[in-house]
């Protein structure tokens, strides 16, 4: 298992700066097989039953706590953690390889990408591909000048709605009250998202993980901090004649 102290990184990275990493021109040009070798065997598989499309995305996955937990809960779903910080991505990469080595046959369905999810989601995913998106403890960006760097905004929700399947769930959680309210009100006012009911929240296995799985969540719990969740479903536009 890699040691976190060898992968020290800054807490934040500017999402607006130009990328210095390769980005696929379009989704079908991206080769997922090297990320999921167990799902894409070298020889043509007999059964085509496996879903070879990434269905879950953890945006700003940090040290990867959530996808590691989700890997065992949904072993048939391919999922990707997206992280902008180079060193942190390296750590998660090593962590996944170590887990695959340690527990043979498990953790084959998770991977990590160094990329800027604010800019390049359509380069990786087709329309309606994702079933779940996670935004756990995003940077709060308190200054009004920096609100455009927030990962949940009306303009970006349009892009998330594009890559998400109808009925897909978007999870957000934060320990910053101001940001929690911002995310809730932004999602509430967006025509393509509706909140989950209390019952649905109760039965969703991922909800529990939001506050317990990640390093950031555990820290908040240790300090007995409050968390603010906003969990929404992607819906068809109310007055969309095409019905999408």
């Amino acid at each position, binding site marked *: 298992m890699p040691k976190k102290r060898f992968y020290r990184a800054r807490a934040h990275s500017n*999402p*607006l700066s*130009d*990328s*210095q990493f390769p980005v696929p*021109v*379009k*989704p079908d040009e991206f080769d997922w097989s090297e990320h999921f070798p167990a799902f894409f065997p070298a020889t043509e598989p007999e059964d085509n039953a496996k879903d070879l499309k990434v269905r879950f995305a953890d945006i700003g996955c940090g040290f990867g706590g959530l996808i590691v937990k989700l890997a065992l809960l949904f072993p048939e779903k391919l999922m990707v953690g997206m992280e902008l910080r180079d060193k942190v991505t390296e750590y998660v990469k090593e962590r996944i390889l170590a887990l695959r080595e340690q527990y043979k046959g498990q953790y084959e369905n998770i991977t990590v990408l160094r990329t800027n999810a*604010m*800019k*390049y989601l*359509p*380069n990786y995913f087709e*329309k309606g591909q994702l079933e779940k998106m996670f935004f756990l403890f995003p940077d709060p960006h308190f200054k009004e000048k920096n609100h*455009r760097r927030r990962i949940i*905004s*009306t*303009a*970006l*929700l*349009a*892009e998330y*709605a*594009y890559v998400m399947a109808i009925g897909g769930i978007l999870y957000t959680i934060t320990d910053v009250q101001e940001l929690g309210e911002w995310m809730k009100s932004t999602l509430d006012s*967006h*025509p*393509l998202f509706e909140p989950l009911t209390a019952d649905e929240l109760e039965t969703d296995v991922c909800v529990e993980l939001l506050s317990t799985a990640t390093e950031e969540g555990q820290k908040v719990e240790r300090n007995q901090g409050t968390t603010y969740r906003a969990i929404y479903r992607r819906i068809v*536009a109310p*007055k*969309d004649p095409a019905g*999408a």
Partner: protein
Amino acid sequence: MEEIGGEEKMKAGKSMAPALIAAHPDGSCVVVAVGAALRIFNLLKEEPVQVQDDTLPAGHGDVIRAVAFDLHNSLFASVGDDKLVKLWDATAWTCIKTVRLSKKASAVTFSHDSAWLLVADKFGIVYVFSTVRHDAIHKPVLILAHCCSIITGLCCSPDGKYIVTSDRDFKIRVTKFPENPLTGAHDIHTYCLGHTNFVACVAFIGFQGLLISGGGDATLRLWEYETGALLDTFDTTDEAGVSGQSQGTRAVVAVAVSSCNTYVGTILERFEGVLLFACDMVERQLSLLQKVLWSENAPPTSLSFDSGGNLWLVSGAAETVEMGDEFVTPEALAVAQVQAQGIAMAAVTHVQVVRDCVLLGGTSVPGGELLLHTLQGHQAGVQDVTAATEAAELAMKNLLSKRQYTAEQREHRKRMRNDKVVSLAS
């Protein structure tokens, strides 16, 4: 190191903005926007037109970056680095209204039904305004946004169903045109992905769902915008190699489609001519019809077809008035505006017309010498035009291209970071 040097030079030197040209869809006039000024020539009466602006502030205070005519109601819009959006009556040439944005504008267009004006700013936000003279809303209303990427092209599909936006992050986005634009366009229909550098321009061809785009990868691409499928790619690199200079690829600067959809005109960076394409609507592909070149050293910066099939081309550029990031007093703004108007007055352009793939020589253009005199400025020397144009194209390319740093340069830049400098000093 070369890149870093270039960057510093850009900051120190004045930025240039290319001249723009637009022909009225009804063929009544031609407009050249250079610097902060609009030069208009009425082709029917064969006389220059002076604009009248009673709104506040009157006239543009910095270079105009984008202009657009609407199709039906004889409206015209101009936006620029002064953050002002001006809507004009394109018959009487009076200003209908002026709206101030918080950022510099980069693109403008009208909705298909002419009811709405859409303006993109350099932070990637598209605002919408009603074109009605007196409406209750004076604040810009956000309709959609690209995440902090400069929007280079903006147009509404001829079927009225979509808004198409292109940006410097290689993307073309097709968004459904909403029933009520004031509540925003949230439903992204598709993306047209395939460009490998910034997208510089987009335009529709015909009514069969075709879109054409050009960009920094020197290609012209034909798309089906309903599905986002790439139908055809034309690499202009070989066509543009003729003039001898081979300093990198030439970005596609602009495209224009003739009103009967027979021709697609394309201009390239540092290229003294225009490429004319035909678009086969059945096979859905592009073919090069004609390469029109000229000996004068004046690469065009903008082009526009008029209803009679004339292709109008302009070359030229004007300096911008840099205001910096500090708070700007109204007095300073007034001074800047006078300065901008002065620059625009002195700016020279070079106007040319191509008809049926043939360049019309000298004063045989529609409107004759008086038109050239009006649109080009007083002592239009081709050499001045060329130098200014090249500076403008370079500035535009530097703005839109992503800088590529080697590992070494990146380390050097990291060492120069502000927080590191402070920690070294203490």
